[in-house]
């Protein structure tokens, strides 16, 4: 189902969305950044401009999350209380790279042992995509087979044209939402078929470079023992800025917290594979003791291991790692080197 929304009606449309559920969208914060935040005033929403540095992943997989609370009894047994959240939420303005990321995260947490915390939130979330017209110079979504208008994972996809917003409803969840919103939307004529392709063409022309990784998908492990890793890991300071801003990083650490002698909780927080202690065995042995091994792990996980596990690249080309790297390590030049090594071997 495809509809048109008049430019003038956008505010009313957003207000309607806000009535349905908690609305999360990019808003300008006091510190002057744009961030996905629960919206207080729809006027604060800024849909255009570059993609926020923090991805909306945190609304499905928060940086810190309580798994359960417990109350200790005298014999050491405890009564547990699960803390699942399933308040309905609508996330608006998600770029295709982040839509892919959310789809990956959901897929990852659905395999074998299902992670109810993420899945429960996902079930109660409506994802509204936004065709990307403002790529940054760090963006490389075309390299990993995505496109700036791809709607995979979205319930509703929106795109801006000069005279109207295109609203494409893709899932039942999306349809249910749209049906609750009275007549703000108009029918979309046949000619609107061209809207997304033309945005795609225009945006792709603005993306700095395309490294065709799809052609070497599944074969990237042959770069494992290459010398390229060392040239980047020398520079790398092994902080976690790239992983903490990455929309597909799923690793976490869990720990217990006692608030009183009897009550406490187990929580989980994001963890980063770049940290030395991440793989440290109880015995003191560390399989990834060097920064080289850790940097390689991160990159290989994105392009090889996740392909082995789920058949998907877990990099969506959003470029946040490059954006947040304090020592200017550029993911595009890493994948360029990888492709070179896989295709032509080490020089």
């Amino acid at each position, binding site marked *: 189902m495809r509809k048109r929304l008049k430019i003038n009606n956008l505010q009313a449309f957003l207000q309607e969305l806000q009535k349905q559920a908690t609305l999360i969208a990019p808003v300008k914060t006091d510190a002057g950044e744009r961030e996905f935040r629960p919206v207080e005033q729809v006027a604060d929403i800024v849909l255009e401009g570059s993609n926020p540095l923090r991805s909306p992943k945190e609304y499905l997989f928060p940086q810190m999350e309580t798994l359960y609370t417990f109350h200790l009894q005298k014999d050491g*047994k405890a009564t547990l209380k*699960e803390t*699942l959240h*399933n308040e309905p939420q609508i996330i608006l303005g998600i770029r295709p790279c982040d839509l892919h990321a959310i789809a990956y995260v959901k897929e990852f947490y659905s395999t*074998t042992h299902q992670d*109810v915390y993420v899945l429960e939130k996902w079930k109660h979330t409506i994802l509204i995509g936004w065709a990307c017209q403002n790529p940054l110079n760090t963006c490389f979504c075309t390299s990993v087979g995505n496109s700036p208008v791809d709607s995979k994972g979205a319930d509703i996809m929106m795109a801006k044209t000069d005279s109207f917003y295109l609203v494409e409803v893709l899932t039942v969840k999306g349809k*249910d939402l749209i049906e609750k919103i009275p007549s703000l939307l108009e029918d979309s004529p046949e000619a609107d078929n061209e809207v997304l392709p033309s945005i795609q063409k225009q945006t792709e022309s603005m993306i700095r470079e395309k490294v065709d990784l799809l052609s070497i998908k599944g074969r990237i492990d042959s770069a494992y023992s290459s010398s390229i890793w060392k040239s980047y890991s020398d520079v790398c300071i092994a902080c976690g800025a790239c992983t903490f801003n990455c929309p597909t990083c*799923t690793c976490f*650490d869990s720990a217990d917290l006692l608030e009183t002698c009897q009550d406490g909780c187990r929580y989980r927080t994001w963890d980063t594979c770049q940290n030395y202690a991440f793989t440290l065995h109880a015995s003191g042995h560390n399989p990834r003791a060097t920064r080289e091994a850790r940097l390689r*792990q991160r990159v290989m996980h994105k392009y090889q291991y996740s392909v082995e596990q789920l058949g998907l690249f877990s990099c969506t080309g959003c470029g946040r790692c490059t954006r947040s790297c304090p020592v200017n390590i550029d993911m595009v030049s890493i994948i360029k080197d990888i492709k070179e090594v896989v295709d032509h071997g080490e020089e």
Partner: protein
Amino acid sequence: MEKNKKIPSSTNNPYLPFFASIREVGQQTSTVKHFLVDLPKENYPEKFIPGQFYQLSIPGVGEAPISVSDYDPINHTLLFCIAKTGVVTSQIHTLQKGDYLGLRGPFGNGFPMDTFRGKNIVLVAGGIGLVPLRSVVEDYFRNQDQYGELEILFGARNSQEIIYREEMKQWRLKKKTTCKITIDKPEKGWDGNVGFVCNLVDKSYCDCSEVLFHHTSPDQTNTVILVVGPPVMFQSILNNLSTIHFPDDLVYVSLENHMKCGIGKCGHCNCGGKYVCQDGPIFSWKELKTLEKEY
């Protein structure tokens, strides 16, 4: 999508532990204790495979993955043997009979016992590595008629650190079973083997493995070798085995990567395309060769 205020809950949350009471506690060595716990009825494992592990927790302290030494399918008890290494295990060591332990599991793939039927089993264990192998031993004695011979090769740092002393005495008395122990350095009053456990799979060593070398016609394809120990130890065992061209699909190794969640989600144990807690911890040597050397 209604805004409902009902507190949600899920019956199928893999992160929630259940509680089991401790039936028996025993001291194995100065730093190792064993704990026998009664499983509550609703938490009997559907199937337990030797080599699997449970996540043991104490609320407020934390969680640690611990291999199962034995699951008794009749009494529904689990036996754990725990070395004091960190915060959680130290706290577990303070528990007494009647206290409760939080448990999640069983996790991991375990040893493919079905494929061992009719074969001789050689167990090589370094130190606390004997713990998961004991579940194999118990399974072997329960169904001894289905397997060939059993040989246990065990290396401890010193004679004080030998675990399952009493049990090993019993095992030795059983038919078709041999048991060899070695300690790292010579000691007063020790007249057994001295040296690393990898010696026992070295042909040139005088008291080396019976099954592998001393049988009249050692048929390698009729023997499986299960190795559990620290990475340094199993690497040298594998080196020794490669010199005698032992088939790599008949050797199984247990990896001990750092684990947190036990269900392949937290990413700590990620090694190549595998999550050790979920796809392992048991890998055949053949699989191990395809894995990145990050264990």
